[in-house]
């Protein structure tokens, strides 16, 4: 075998790469595994398509050298990044290595993080962050090792923010995540904490306990907690589940705002119609029904992917496909607060509309809204301002938008079903029931004087209700063309597939006028 000129250097490169792939060493790797966590290398391999990882900065780290200049010891940086493929599509991947100094910043090379974010932006690649680090500052010990302190700034934050308006960003919380790591986790279009191993907090249990309240990591910032606060979008049962969710989320989106989400063949006929939908909504307005069953039925089979199930529950947000086209689905869930907009639901809606607008996804909105949530707690939560913000995002949105009124539509919240000044691409089911105020709640206020002077208060109340109910028919509204078209529920799928096909060529590439914020 012939010897090439640079063979010694190539051998040294391979050796340095080999050592870097050993991460924090056998002992730290064993510790990582003992916590039920995969190593950073295993994570990258499992998320990406087989053998598709192309690492950058593979030998960046800290070396110690002997007097003769020989490398004695090498500790890799605790953040690796590069490119790979997910379902055949190139993506950028950035991953923390907890086995090297707990992922803390004192073992970091910040420029790698900056370059990872910038690469995703410049190359228009979806970005997946696998976060497993304690934070940006390391410990206060670094004061002694570096001999100075500094005014804080999050490295690469201009890119982190720019990416939210440019490429899909998914972050998975795969360990205890505080400070900078937490900021990176939430600054994503889709964030997930893995049960048992992923937690997120501004500061960990040690600091909180020192401040006077003893807590565990999961009590302070576990997956179950933050999937309910909405600080992250969802939880996953395990790491494999989180990787599957990340892949699924990305499958509905374009690689960047400069392209459009692709149609796939779902094999589900746009003309499929199920007659049970005509009985899906009960006649008794006090009685609930399960909207997810309806949504899953009208979209392409097995295409419904819910985001944020555990928070702001009166509004459901999901990606789905209609005749193969990806769409953003919004739906009211009457099983939570009767479908009323709570502060959390309004925030969830705002973010989701911004997400749809950013990536040019047409919106389909299924409405059953009795109004804004009422009561002292709702007022204390600032529901009105959050509702106002949701209305603003709906009215600023320019993506194609189709509304289906399932049942109730009352008050300001329901008026946010769509921007009514656009062409009203809207259908209503025969169960439609709408107005400024629901009759049941409004009579007492509107007819107060009459009721107070009545001999038989209840009888008069009933009589008034009967009078009002006679004009409640949705057909009277349609007669005045105040609702555009009433349809049989079983027709919904075909009409929505028509919408998706009409909307597809209307989608416009490029940076949206307003884009997503965490």
């Amino acid at each position: 075998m012939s010897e090439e000129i640079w063979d010694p250097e190539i051998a040294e490169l391979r050796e340095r790469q080999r050592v870097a792939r050993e991460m924090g060493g056998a002992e730290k790797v064993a510790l990582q595994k003992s916590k039920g966590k995969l190593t950073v290398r295993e994570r990258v391999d499992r998320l990406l398509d087989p053998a598709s990882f192309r690492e950058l900065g593979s030998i960046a780290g800290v070396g110690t050298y002997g007097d003769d200049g020989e490398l004695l010891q090498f500790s890799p940086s605790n953040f690796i990044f590069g490119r790979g493929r997910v379902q055949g599509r190139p993506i950028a991947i950035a991953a923390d290595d907890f086995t090297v100094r707990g992922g803390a910043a004192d073992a970091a090379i910040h420029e790698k993080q900056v370059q990872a974010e910038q690469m995703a932006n410049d190359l228009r690649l979806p970005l997946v962050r696998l976060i497993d680090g304690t934070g940006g500052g390391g410990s206060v010990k670094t004061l002694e090792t570096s001999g100075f302190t500094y005014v804080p700034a999050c490295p690469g934050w201009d890119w982190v923010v720019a990416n939210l308006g440019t490429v899909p960003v998914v972050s998975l919380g795969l360990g205890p995540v505080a400070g900078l790591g937490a900021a990176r986790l939430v600054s994503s279009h889709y964030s997930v904490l893995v049960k048992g191993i992923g937690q997120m907090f501004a500061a960990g249990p040690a600091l909180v306990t020192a401040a006077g309240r003893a807590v565990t990591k999961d009590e302070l910032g576990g997956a179950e907690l933050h999937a309910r606060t909405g600080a992250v979008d969802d939880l996953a049962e395990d790491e494999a589940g989180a990787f599957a969710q990340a892949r699924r989320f990305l499958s509905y989106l374009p690689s960047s705002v400069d392209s459009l989400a692709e149609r796939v063949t779902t094999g589900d006929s746009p003309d499929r119609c199920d007659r049970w939908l005509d009985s899906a909504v009960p006649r008794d307005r006090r009685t609930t029904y399960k909207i997810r069953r309806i949504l899953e039925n009208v979209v392409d089979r097995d295409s419904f992917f819910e985001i944020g199930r555990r928070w702001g529950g009166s509004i459901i947000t999901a990606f789905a496909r209609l005749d193969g086209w990806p769409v953003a689905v919004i739906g009211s869930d009457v099983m939570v607060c009767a479908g009323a907009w709570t502060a959390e639901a309004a925030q969830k809606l705002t973010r989701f509309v911004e997400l749809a607008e950013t990536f040019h996804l047409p919106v389909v909105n299924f409405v059953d809204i009795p109004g804004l949530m009422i009561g002292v707690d709702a007022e204390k939560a600032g529901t009105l301002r959050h509702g106002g913000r949701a209305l603003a995002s709906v009215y600023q949105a320019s993506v194609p938008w189709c509304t289906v009124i399932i049942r109730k539509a009352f008050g300001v919240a329901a008026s946010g079903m769509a921007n009514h000044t656009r062409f009203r691409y809207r259908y209503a089911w025969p169960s439609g029931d709408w107005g400024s105020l629901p009759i049941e709640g409004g009579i007492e206020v509107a007819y107060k004087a009459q009721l107070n002077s009545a001999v038989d208060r209840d009888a008069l109340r009933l009589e008034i209700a009967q009078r009002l109910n006679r004009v409640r028919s949705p057909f009277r509204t349609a007669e005045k063309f105040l609702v555009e078209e009433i349809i049989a529920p079983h027709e919904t799928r075909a009409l929505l597939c028509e919408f998706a096909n009409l909307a597809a060529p209307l989608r416009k590439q490029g940076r949206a006028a307003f884009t997503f914020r965490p």
Partner: protein
Amino acid sequence: MALYSLKADTQGMVSAIDIVAGDRIAVAQVLLRLEIMKMEIPVETPVAGRVTAVHVKAGEYVSEGQLLATIETA
């Protein structure tokens, strides 16, 4: 045997309780009902087993995430 904590997915007033401690229950059985914004929301159990404790009373206003009942799973 494991204990399952049935929590409220919505806030609301407990309008009816359909079970008592000791009852055997099946998956998707309605254990109680919550009233909010003039809707009656049935609370179904996702697990089968035996009710060991009911933690709320009729007429009580519960918040989202509040513990409603404890179930010993079969």
